[in-house]
């Protein structure tokens, strides 16, 4: 790493430096915004899946209760 840095040409961070930094920061900012949007989408999908899992469990419980009632009526 040190040898790499030693071989590095001096970075002229004067007038041109701010423009180069600006261009690369724009690129990285766009990437970060995209990742944030994807993270929000993922959260929404996760929330919907949790809701659906709850809905399916609730429905199974209701079905089990109905079946139990039918069995009682049939048995009695």
């Amino acid at each position: 790493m040190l040898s790499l840095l030693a071989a590095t040409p001096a970075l002229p961070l004067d007038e041109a430096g701010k423009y180069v930094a600006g261009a690369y920061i724009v690129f990285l900012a766009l990437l970060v915004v995209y990742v944030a949007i994807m993270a929000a989408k993922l959260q929404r999908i996760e929330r919907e899946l949790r809701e659906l899992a709850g809905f399916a469990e609730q429905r199974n419980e209701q079905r089990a209760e109905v079946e139990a009632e039918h069995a009682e009526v049939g048995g009695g």
Partner: protein
Amino acid sequence: MYGKGLRPLSIATVAAILAAFSLVFFYTPLDADQGFIQKIFYLHVPLAITALVGFVGGGLFAIAHLRSGNSKWDAYSYVSIHISVIFGAAVLITGSIWAKASWGHWWVWDEPTLVSFLIVFLMYATYYPFRYAIEDRERQGRYASVFAIVAGAFVPLNFMAVRMAQSLVHPRVFATTNGGLPGSMMLTFLVCLLAVGLLWITLVKFELTAKSASGQVKRLRRALDAPAPGSRSRIAPEVG
């Protein structure tokens, strides 16, 4: 199964971007003419090439959609164009920054390269309202595919027209009689192109995976006959 291979692809993309940026700032010599500002070239040009190839790819996927009627290809076409539009925005911004530093102006209207890219970008920006304006999903996919094919064919024609045009100030680096890039700069440029290309593929896969997951949730909801919470109209193609 759009998520298959996404993890190694993401790792490869991050490694390629790190390698590319390291080469740009620690290996490649400063340009004799432009100096440090030329470093923007290694980001701006690969983004532009990838965006334009992505637009053409979107057209090719649209052809596959119209030929087969499979909505999978429509989703590929939509996502290709979507990611390419994002890259196109980055091209315009980084190009403007370079123009300001090099020419002293953020934008030059009599330069064919800039204006033609802006035309292509704006044309693809109309893809979204065009698509969203159609409610019927099948018609939406068909019309969007026709748009993607026509626009995709326009991209290489536009590129050739610009290459043949008499450029005023925008530099011509490749395939010019004034010589191309020296070896170290060319190597850095190719690594940057690879990195940006990998990034494009990774983002397309991410987007397709998210759409597929969203589509599966909708399918599950229909199968369970569960009420949709605040159901919003779908604007993007559903991926099964």
